[in-house]
């Protein structure tokens, strides 16, 4: 099975800013791996299950109770950039 991969599109979906050269390399590796992985298609059968859990249990809930939140200073101490209690990021959209 020939595997068609729009590697630039995949990298964009995954937010990986790779160079063209890197993309080419990954593209051919992915093609090899996917060719092997495509063997899963030999199986015919049921629709896939609603859960991967081997013990097949359900309804794991918690009660609506509060637990202590984290200390803000400790949280923000790990942030690359913070200001006035906020995390800071560049603008969301490209300036037009």
């Amino acid at each position: 099975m020939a595997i068609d991969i729009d590697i630039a599109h995949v990298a964009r979906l995954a937010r990986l800013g790779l160079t063209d050269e890197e993309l080419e390399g990954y593209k051919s590796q992915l093609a090899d791996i996917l060719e092997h992985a495509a063997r899963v298609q030999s199986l015919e059968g049921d629709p896939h299950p609603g859960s991967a859990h081997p013990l097949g249990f359900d309804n794991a809930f918690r009660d609506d109770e509060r637990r202590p939140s984290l200390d803000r200073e400790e949280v923000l101490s790990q942030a690359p950039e913070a200001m006035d209690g906020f995390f800071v990021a560049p603008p969301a959209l490209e300036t037009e």
Partner: protein
Amino acid sequence: MTARWEAVIGIEVHVELATDSKMFCGCAVEFGSEPNTNVCPVCLGLPGALPVPNRKAIEWIMAIGLALNCQVSHKSVFHRKNYFYADLPKNYQISQYDIPVCHDGYLDLPNDGESVRVGIERAHMEEDTGKSTHVGDGGRIHAAKSTLLDFNRSGVPLVEIVSKPDIRTATQARAYAQELRAIVLELGVSDARLEEGSMRFDANVSIRPEGSDVLGTKVEIKNMNSFRSLERAIDYEIQRQIEATGSDSDVIQETRHWDEEAGVTHSMRTKEGSSDYRYFIEPDLVPMIMDETWVATIRNKLPELPAQRRERYLGQGLDESSAGVLSDSPAMLRSLYDETVSLGADTRATANWLTGEVTAWLRKTGTEPADLRLEPVHLQELITIVDEGVVSSSAAKEVLEGILSGEGSARVVAERRDLIQISDSSALAEVIGHVLEEHPDAVASYQEGEQKVVGFLVGQVMRATQGKADPKLANEMLREALGGS
């Protein structure tokens, strides 16, 4: 062009649930806290953290679904919806995909002569994102210099309710949104405050020639944060699409942003192009089984819903309008209505008092409905003495004030404040005699056929009695004294 257009509208509503803790962690659900104080490893998406669903949120979405006549799925699962955004900490949202908690319901809009039923496609459970504030030139998106991120809202339980495209006008859209809000408020599951974003709307709008059953190109409108702007935005968009159709600028499938100030929608296409959310079952969670017993428990706890209530009021003789107004009134007033009516008071009069004078008094004095002190028996008595003519309807308002200020029962207030009508004809006869004596001109005019002077004379009688005369009785007696009717 001969074609008449009709709009095809579907609404997506996001409702934040007012649980104590968030959807998947124990952080507080609270509006207005200091930024990033209600956060933990789970809702910040720290490495290694895992979600555990809040049972109450699931019960509440079941209640919403049942109130919207939905089926509750026997088994439901969470999916991951993958997209990158700075205010989405894990860069995926835990949401639902092909097996939502609730599906296939409907909502009947408050009846205005024609009955409109809006289908409900689904109601699913998800988590809210954090909040981005764009700062920079004018704070506008396109000129933003940076984004401040607060994750207090991240992980707040969010119910998304998707209607079928059964809505045809902006007015219906508004009615739908308002009815939904009334329902979630009745269920007590959300503050549903539009201005705080705890209830948010998106609308999908397309147009087609009237009578056609093809669907036109769909445009999604975002950023309407009041019922009024929902209505305006849809009206604007329908008009824009009608104008665009056939012209060079055909309608394209896109998302448009409602600009409240300018009163227009504008395109908010991003570089992203078509999205691919790569949904797959959330492997950190196990399936939810909503068996019949559980569903029945929730169903049995449902309160009377606005539509049922309006129906009941109509059955009690209220008209559409007062049934609607009363139904939307605070719970305290509604239970006062029920209790007063159960004492035998007239339903219309009771509803009028509560939605009229009592509501006005609450507003005027800034009293919370819950703090209202009004004995049903006092209201009933007030209605009775008005009906019996013991007090005039204008004096009755003063009596109500006295009751609400704690001065006692209706009769006691009326007496203490000296508001009892003079309905005794011998007492009135004396006053009338004096009035006629003092206004011979008026008497003469009447005798020349000038009927309307009776009104003037009644006014004089009222004045002479400081408003305590029964005006109806005064009128009758005056005419008699003036010589026939």
